[in-house]
């Protein structure tokens, strides 16, 4: 205060209250990832309504077309339950994972290339690895909400046999992050966008959607196509979602594999993203 009073006659209009910079640095070292995720949430705010309408519209369309339209053609049960019960967990996971894939490509790439949000944060105590983790956190919150909205809509369609199905929400979030974090790591390395993102969309996300057990059990596909399921977060997530939703039979070891695969993708993706963010920003 004394400092401020002493210079009052020539003040620039900016006050210097004697902030403790050491404390600020300590705070950011610990919480910088959280600070960054708040930015991402603020930046998404203008797109709230578009996102909300999509998050409501998607499940309605999918459940009407697949659950009821296609479902009315499916004779008898699939995996011992109605087609709607079978397909709903798959649709939920697939939708949320696709959104995660979208977030992992253009917004990250654009953040480096056009938006400059990483450059801005870089001039502050926030470190590149914290930006990667912060993106992950903000997107996971977003995915959680989207999954929950899908679940609510599903409720109106009678898509869930019981209350345990609510667990599909965190499962979908997990699967979506397993897709998001590796893509984020990759997007941070791209200097010029060429065909890479089209490739991601058409040759990774689309086939996953079609062949990763969303619409029919993986086992009903020829063996030489089943690997697509095994390497995709979508399939592992869908299987877990079916277990909690209608109690799909699954050997315990395989359930463990699903969880380990998803967590592995997330942790691995974050570790690599921390590196690619740092490489990109600190030169």
């Amino acid at each position: 205060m004394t400092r401020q009073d002493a210079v009052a006659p020539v003040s620039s209009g900016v006050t210097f209250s004697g902030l403790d910079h050491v404390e600020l640095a300590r705070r950011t070292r610990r919480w910088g990832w959280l600070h960054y995720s708040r930015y991402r949430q603020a930046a998404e705010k203008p797109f709230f309504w578009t996102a909300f309408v999509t998050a409501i519209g998607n499940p309605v369309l999918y459940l009407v077309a697949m659950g009821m339209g296609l479902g009315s053609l499916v004779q008898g049960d699939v995996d011992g339950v109605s087609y709607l019960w079978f397909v709903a967990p798959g649709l939920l996971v697939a939708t949320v994972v696709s959104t995660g894939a979208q977030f992992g490509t253009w917004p990250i790439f654009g953040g480096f290339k056009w938006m400059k949000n990483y450059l801005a944060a870089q001039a502050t105590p926030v470190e590149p690895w914290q930006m990667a983790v912060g993106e992950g956190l903000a997107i996971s919150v977003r995915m959680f909400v989207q999954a929950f909205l899908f679940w609510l809509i599903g409720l109106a369609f009678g898509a869930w046999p019981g209350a345990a199905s609510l667990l599909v929400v965190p499962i979908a979030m997990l699967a979506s992050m397993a897709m998001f974090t590796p893509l984020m790591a990759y997007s941070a390395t791209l200097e010029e966008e060429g065909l890479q993102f089209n490739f991601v969309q058409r040759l990774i996300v689309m086939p996953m959607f079609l062949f990763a057990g969303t619409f029919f059990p993986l086992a009903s596909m020829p063996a030489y196509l089943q690997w697509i399921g095994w390497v995709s977060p979508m399939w592992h997530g869908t299987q877990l979602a079916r277990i909690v939703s209608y109690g799909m039979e699954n050997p315990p070891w395989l359930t463990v594999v699903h969880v380990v695969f998803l967590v592995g993708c997330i942790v691995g993706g974050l570790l690599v993203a921390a590196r690619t963010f740092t490489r990109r920003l600190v030169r």
Partner: protein
Amino acid sequence: MSVIEARGLTKKFGDFTAVDAISFEVAPGESFGLLGPNGAGKSTTMRMIGGTSLRTDGTLTVLGLDPETHGPEVRASLGVVPQQDSLDEELRARDNLIVYGRYFGLPMDYLKPKADELLEFAQLTEKANAKVSALSGGMKRRLTIARGLVNEPRILLLDEPTTGLDPQARHILWDRLFRLKEQGVTLVLTTHFMDEAEQLCDRLVVIDHGRIVAEGAPQALIRQYSTREVVEVRFGSARNAEMEGVLREMTDRIEVLPDRILLYDDAGEALLDEINRRGLNPLTSLVRRSSLEDVFLRLTGRSLID
């Protein structure tokens, strides 16, 4: 104790040496300038000070810390105004300040009044709720500068702060920066404007091709590297070359630029009288005091007009 100390600071990009073993010190409360043509290595040096570019060689301490190993600690005390604005175009002016302040872990009850204060500083109070994409280039620049002050920095790094500002806004900003200095903030700035350097810098280094070619206070550099006065004459592009020989006889140093000839002499008026007496008939002529511009020309062989 200096707040910034660089010894043999070097930055290479592959084989290319952008900053070539420069050494300098900045004292607390000082206003220190980096002057140099495009590509001299000014921005690279600024980034190394902030710890966002890794040096290839040499030592560097900022507030006693190595910015490479203590980046967050250094940047917590630093205000950074990068050469290129890095505002979020989709957010409102005010929210840009708040979001940025959050990165420092500053609480909302600090940031809300601070944002108003900074908008006032940047003369953007009326635009507080406008999206950044709706601001003019100069307004964005002012907002970027204000944003750099959100954490009450001890050192303010200004990379070409007034590029894009109109003359009035520039003068207001100079005044405010000067006051910040009075309040104890150390200023480190790069600029292409010689008048800005003369106004704002207590001391500066002239950098060319990544090397320091001169160092000192603006007036001292002018005394050391130039004459008291300069005569500028124009004969039209066709005659400039032909006049060179005659003029060279008349004083110790002349510089022939594409559009004019500069004659360096302590007694400018007398020299101009002599030129007119000999009937050389320049199209235009003027006598002025030497400036950093002339120092620059002398040291680098290039003029530095934006």
